[in-house]
């Protein structure tokens, strides 16, 4: 398939919408995907009974909201029909602009609600909705930071496959320094320094020594895994009472807002890292799209020679973008120890760095979209653990692999072609 648009609709009279072959293909694949999911949901209709109840608040929340109970079969039926209608609407090719977005959104929501109704129907315990959303934010925190790391690096033309390694070293440094100093602030500082040091290693080899960036990322991940594993075995493990017992980040309720019903416990009773993640998305967006530095980062990632010709230091800009990315990776890595138990264990980050990389690609190298994708992956992960505790017949492993499948579908062009910065991964030699 070539880049030249093919006239899909014959020009009859008046204003006829033209659709490029690429758009047409992605529209059709999205429609088929939704159709298949709709049929899957319809299959669940055979296996549903009783009512599904959803708890909107935790037992500990200040404001107790009622438990919503919906009849299982009719709700699932309605969701299935909505999803199928959305799929048909998208396949028909008559939806454009906001109606298209609406159809896709309705279909997506119907899918989630329908699945949850099926999972919760006929169970003794209601499905904890507020818990689901609060957990989503917590799980997405490191993913959002990691996605920002990836976006900054790749926008400047440096592919960062070593987000995982940066997470891991930061998690280790946070636990170690936190245990020694008994201070969360020092621990966070150590995590940031570790993240930036790993980023500096990436920058040295990728920018200065022109090592292939994907190779480099893989090797740096192995190095991080080996280094933290060795130091853990040699130093930390024999003395874990003193070296692996860091204080953890407490939840900081925002006065006033945190006592709002439903919204309060979900959004305004989180750790400092979750708030920082939200702020960081705005900061990175502002830096990339509203500052001179950001313009240069994007220029260097698209056409380094042109940027160089007008006097922008390609090397300098790439270094600064990668190091700033390391800062965010450090904060994200700190979450795995300081945001959970305060203890490090080997390879504690279990592939989250790669999910963050997936969020970068699904988010089309845009900080805001990438953060939304990170939230989506966090939602799926939380759903995986919730469904596990509900003991439904669907294996939680299937939900856990959803982010990876979604990414493959995305890069295969189903959700529209996403385009990387032109000079992404290409070292610059004057």
């Amino acid at each position, binding site marked *: *398939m070539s*880049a030249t648009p093919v006239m899909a609709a014959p020009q009859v009279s008046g204003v006829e919408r033209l659709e490029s072959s690429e758009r047409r293909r992605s529209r059709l694949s999205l429609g088929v995907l939704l159709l298949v999911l709709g049929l899957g949901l319809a299959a669940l209709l055979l296996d549903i009974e009783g009512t599904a109840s959803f708890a909107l608040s935790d037992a500990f929340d200040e404001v107790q909201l009622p438990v919503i109970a919906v009849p299982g079969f009719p709700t699932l039926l309605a969701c299935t029909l909505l999803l199928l209608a959305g799929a048909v609407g998208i396949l028909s090719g008559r939806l454009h602009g906001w109606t298209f977005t609406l159809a896709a959104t309705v279909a997506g929501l119907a899918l989630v609600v329908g699945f949850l109704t099926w999972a919760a129907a006929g169970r003794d315990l209601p499905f904890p909705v507020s818990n689901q959303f609060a957990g989503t934010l917590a799980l997405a925190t490191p993913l959002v930071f990691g996605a920002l790391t990836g976006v900054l690096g790749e926008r400047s033309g440096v*592919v960062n*496959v070593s987000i995982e390694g940066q997470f891991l070293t930061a998690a280790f440094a946070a636990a170690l320094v936190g245990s020694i100093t008994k201070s969360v602030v020092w621990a966070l500082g150590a995590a940031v320094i570790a993240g930036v040091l790993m980023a500096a290693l990436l920058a040295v*080899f990728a920018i200065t*020594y022109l*090592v*292939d960036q*994907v*190779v*480099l990322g*893989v*090797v*740096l*991940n*192995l*190095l991080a*895994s*080996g*280094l933290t*594993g*060795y*130091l853990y*075995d*040699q*130093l930390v493990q024999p003395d874990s009472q003193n070296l692996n017992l860091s204080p953890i980040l407490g939840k900081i309720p925002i006065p006033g807002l945190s006592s709002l019903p439903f919204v309060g416990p979900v959004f305004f009773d989180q750790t400092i890292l979750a708030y920082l993640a939200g702020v960081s998305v705005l900061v990175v967006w502002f830096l990339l799209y509203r500052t001179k530095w950001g313009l240069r980062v994007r220029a260097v990632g*698209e*056409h*380094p*020679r042109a940027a160089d010709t007008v006097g922008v230091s390609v090397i300098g800009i790439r270094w600064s973008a990668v190091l700033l990315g390391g800062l965010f990776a450090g904060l994200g890595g700190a979450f795995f120890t300081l945001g959970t138990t305060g203890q490090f264990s080997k390879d504690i980050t279990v*592939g989250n760095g*790669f999910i963050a*990389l*997936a969020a970068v*690609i699904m988010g089309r190298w845009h900080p805001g979209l990438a953060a939304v994708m990170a939230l989506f992956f966090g939602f799926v992960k939380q759903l995986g653990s919730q469904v596990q505790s509900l003991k439904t017949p669907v*294996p939680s*492993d*299937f939900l*856990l*692999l959803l982010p*990876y*499948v979604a*990414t*493959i579908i995305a*890069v*295969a*062009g189903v959700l529209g*072609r*996403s*385009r*990387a*910065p*032109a*000079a*992404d*991964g*290409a*070292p*610059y*030699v004057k």
Partner: protein
Amino acid sequence: MSATSVEGGPASATPPGPSFGQRLLGVFRGGGLWREAATTAAAILLALLVGAILMIVSDPDVAGQWAYLFTAPHLPLAASWGKVWGAYSALFVGALGSPTAIAETTARSAPLIAAGLGVGLGFRAGLFNIGAQGQAIWGAVLAAYVGFAWQLPLGLHLLVAILGGLLGGAVWGGIVGVLKAKAGAHEVIVTIMMNYIAMYLLAWLLTTSAFQRPGRTDPISPELPASATMPSFGLTRFHLGFILAVVAAVAVWWLLERSVLGMQIRAVGANPHAARTAGMSEARTTIITMALAGGLAGLAGLMSTLAPAPSGVPTPLSDGVVGSVGFDAITVALLGRSHPIGIVFAGLLFGAMNAGGLAMQSMAQTPNTLVYVLQALIVLFVAAPKLVSTLLPFLKGRLRKASATGGEA
């Protein structure tokens, strides 16, 4: 289709430098064997040096001695030397010190060589196959399933199990090839994601009645019968897997250097545009190469379930059964410069280090995770010859020439 790759590759608007595959080839062809050997030796030396420093600073007893540096310099020096010498000599003894140790080295090298060949073959076609891990997992899964679920006569059983493992890896790799060739999906992203999909599918399979051992609640498969176990020679761990790995290396060498398909693979890797102009099908080559690479990684995976463990019987299928062979394979392929012979030597080196790591842990109280640090460092230094020549100035004259010709070939 090829110009719109998702993750930017060498095919971009900027004036293209040599692609990664080209550079690898260039290094091998233009560099000359002596220079390559010198770079590798220097990289190993530097890695051992960094490892030594790491050992000294991370051992509180040894690091504490350095307080006496100015009053009694022999104390810290002796303690450090003792620590480093103890660890490295145990590493050596564990790898090559006895026939048993050498057999262990072959057992640990075999999967690295096989999976390294798979990754290297991909490199030669310009494909970045990060997915050896997932391909190895499917190799292990299918081989083990044939092993414990089917009843076949002696000899045939093992053969079918091996073929099943090869097929599992080849299909998982072939999917990547199809996605790359037909949908333009970048193989780096697809293979990374496929690794995790394989991992979670294995975790799920081990909860199903077809795979979980009856009477067990933990994720573990039934044990394999002797008819599906690779024979080993004597009472050591020198088993059929190593022979298969060497045969695979010869086969890959023949494929690349003596066959039409191999010529196409190399042509597509060196210059896809020229290959297309010459009438070669890039899509077909991509799919075949990925399937072959997957099969080789599958060979590595099936060894982990069919080859006898130190206990004499194969390890049953479980979550981490293939270890990190797919990722280590990337370092092996890089160290071996994607050349079959180089990969055999690189696999032997890393296999020896893995075998010696256990001895280092038990004899010198040095965690064997140090081995992974050393391996990552070696590859890092090999990948950046300029850095090596900066750090070791006496090699400069020889290596500068190597990196210069390597970049332009």
